[in-house]
């Protein structure tokens, strides 16, 4: 079991939440429909990124993907569990993405049930600057082979580029 960050969840009957402002299941499905490309450039921020290590809890396993574009982001995850149909969650939010700053204008909040577990992603509106010598704890960093989202006490999410 892993949880990163501090958030408020709005759970509704049926344990399904989908309150992302621009959230559509289609975006999450589309992002997970992309096949990993060996030619994706990890030196550019825009594109589709996949977590380097799935989150595991027993037989529950979750893989997250992050799509960064000039004017929007999609944050999505797919959960699998033994004996259960895989679940895809996620949503899109308006954003401004540049080499210096990722600024998300909306929020993403999508949680669904899978078996006796919950699978979800949340992203709050806000900004994250590129890492510098002075700012290295709350920032994003292109390492050349991947992307690290350093969120201070909320931990670091590490991604590898799968598509431009």
């Amino acid at each position, binding site marked *: *079991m892993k949880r990163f960050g501090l*958030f408020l969840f709005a759970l509704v009957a049926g344990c399904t939440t989908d309150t992302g402002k621009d959230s559509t299941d289609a975006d999450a499905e589309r992002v997970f429909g992309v096949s990993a490309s060996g030619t994706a450039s990890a030196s550019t921020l825009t594109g589709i990124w996949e977590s380097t290590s799935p989150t595991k809890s027993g037989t529950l396993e979750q893989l997250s993907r992050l799509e960064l574009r000039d004017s929007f982001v999609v944050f999505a995850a797919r959960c699998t569990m033994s004996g259960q149909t895989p679940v895809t969650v996620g949503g899109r939010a308006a954003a401004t993405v540049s080499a210096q700053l*990722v*600024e998300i204008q909306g929020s993403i909040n999508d949680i669904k*049930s899978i078996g006796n*577990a919950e699978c979800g992603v*949340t992203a709050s509106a806000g900004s994250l600057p590129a890492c510098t010598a002075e700012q290295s704890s709350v920032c994003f960093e292109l390492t050349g082979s991947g992307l690290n*989202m350093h969120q201070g006490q909320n931990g670091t999410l590490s991604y590898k580029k799968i598509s431009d």
Partner: protein
Amino acid sequence: MQIALEVVAEHRRKRDAADLEEAQKSRPKPKQSSSP
């Protein structure tokens, strides 16, 4: 304001137990009646 990305993948029973524990912590303790 800082962006915060979070992924949730957890068993409901564990979460329910954590929520219950948190609720119990935040619940005010009953006052003990003072005996004369």
